[in-house]
């Protein structure tokens, strides 16, 4: 079942910082650029120190859902959340609540951008930093 899979960062030391995953994530929508990317790569204090990959880690008990005042974030089977954009008022509490900083923002829509663990980015990671794994939950 697709919904019980989750995206995992296998080893950030393999990451070369090419951002292919970020662009792949945005391509799920009919557009280019990075506005709707739910995954983020940044250096750990400069390129010389390597990279960190920031993405939803599919918490079984997600703090972002707990602080959502409108019930727009519903815990997902297998961890993480599903966003109901119709309910979302764009308050940004979820973004504050995520300790990993893995909730990004779509400034055009004024709504959060959160990984849905579809694994589209995995196919565009040339160095196997990312993988989709079955959850035991």
């Amino acid at each position, binding site marked *: 079942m697709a919904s019980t899979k989750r995206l995992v960062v296998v080893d950030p030391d393999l990451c070369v910082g*090419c951002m292919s995953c970020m662009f792949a994530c945005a391509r799920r929508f009919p557009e*280019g650029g*990075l*506005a709707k990317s739910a995954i983020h790569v940044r250096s750990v204090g400069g*390129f010389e120190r390597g990279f960190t990959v920031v993405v939803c880690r599919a918490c079984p008990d997600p703090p972002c859902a707990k602080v959502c005042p409108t019930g727009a974030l519903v815990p997902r089977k297998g961890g993480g959340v599903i966003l109901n954009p119709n309910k979302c008022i764009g308050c940004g509490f979820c973004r504050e609540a995520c300790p990993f900083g893995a909730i990004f923002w779509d400034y055009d829509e004024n709504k959060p951008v959160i990984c849905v663990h579809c694994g589209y980015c995995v196919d*565009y990671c040339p160095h196997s930093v990312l993988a989709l794994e079955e959850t035991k939950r």
Partner: protein
Amino acid sequence: MNPLMPIIDRDLGKVLYIDLTRKKYWVEDKLELFEKYLGGTGVATQLLKEELPRNADPLGPENVIVFAVGVLSAMYPVASKTVAMFKSPLTGNLGESHAGGRSAIAIRMAGYGAIVIKGASEIPVYLSIHNGKVEFKDASALWGVRSTYTVGRVIREREPWPGTRAIMRIGRAGENLVRYAAVVTETYRHFGRLGLGAVMGSKKLKAIVVGGKRKIPVPDARKYREVYNEIYDAAVKSPAMKKYHDIGTPVNVLVLNTIGALPTRNLTSNRFENAANISGEHLAETRLARRVACSHCPVACIHIAAIREEYPHEKYFYTTRYVSYDYEPTYALGSMLGVGDTDGLLRLIEEVEIQGLDAMSTGVALAWTTEAYIRGLIGKDETIVEPTWGDWKTYIQMVRYIVDQPNEFYKTLAMGTEAAAKKYNGLDFALTFGGNEMPGYHAGPATHLGYLIGARHSHLDNAGYSYDQKKLKEKQYPTPEKVIDDLMAEEAWRQILSSLVVCFFARGVYKPHVVVKALEPMGIKLSEDQLKQLGWEIYKEKYKLKFELGYTFDKLRLPKRIYETLSPHGKIDPAFMEKALSYFKKKILELIEEPKQEKQVEENKAKNKK
């Protein structure tokens, strides 16, 4: 709107103007330029034409810096480069330099197709460009900071958009107006050539931080994904790209050494006995720490070595520092200076990075100095230290002298190798082409002709170095006319790549038919012929600007040294070179005098109708 080349993403047409004198900025809609020239080189040439007084002092406030990205930036893999254009303080003519890192993605994601910087600040500033605003920030405290690494570190912690921003900065070399000072971006990539660092220094502009995130509209998203996948697969799987990922560009050291094309000790030799120590293979096996990529490039050709040193004063106290190595610095600071000590080479590259210099120009300047010293044209009064082939510790000291300029000699050397060679009578062995120090290939006639006739005197203008290597497999070397025709055609096509803007390393992926396909989902319908024609048009525009900036044929000097040292094609024949050059002069005049090109356009139009 151009019906053939509509740009759907209107933000690409936005050009950000920044006036450092008045501390003002504004945005102008220049969509029509992008609809005519795609972006990058094509658009930057036009913006420079509009803004630059032709008699501008390259280090005066009237000089202009243009950064431009193109229609493929942040859309397709390996469209990762930004084109910078300015008047070069090294050559006094058109300056053009390309860099990757995050610069291209950052500029497009910040919502601009180009940035034009004018005027000069009276105090050091850096610019922070994001969310539609430009902030002028006091950089007085950053001015004079020893290392470009530190400057990056400080700005990194103060500015927004980590991950999708570029931090383009100069070192002390740029502050002190060394005519071949570089601009460093993302610590390891450079607008290296022709002295953009000095231009920024003259404007008291220490750094530019630019970044953001936004969407780019695509009319045919299904087709876009399809073409994206094709290009991505080609980039990841092609052998050429794999080579750059595995060993990186220094894979060339042994290749060139084997065929006798590796400039060594100021090109007194074409082979280096210690080539193995500075080879890509050896560096990868013994020093490689990590590989990193420019934004949106899955290839990741940037190779970073670790320098691990024990402190002399305390046992078990180590420093581990990281320095990126590529073929060109390895040639210029390695074989060209006779430096065959692996760690010595890395230390020397590191010093050049710290100071923010162009590695190629610095290496060639030091090589010339060493030979001039050995010949007795200059003495210790000039050089202060004793330059000796292979003595990297002394060369590190000399790099600092180029930046600090403690005497008349180093002041002159900071103006460029040619300036020093003129003053101290060493032109015959000054390896400069059009005033620019040579890249790392002595592969044959086309190599040197390529440097000389290239619009920016870069080996990447027309790839004569690659042409010569391919011709080794053929029985007969082409005629001078054929060589020039081929080099000019290559340079014309590369105008398209650098307008899109695609990294030249991916030229094998972005063949004309692929470019046609890549543009289609964005609503741009150009045929291969039309693209090639546009390439010629941009090439012509650039050369017209060069002439307006004072380009003359009598500056086309080939250093005598290239005739003295054997190339893989044997001794280079001066008569061959002369013939080629006079043919080039004829061809370039024909090109800029238009009628023939217009005829060609008409012919193509007729062809397309059929």
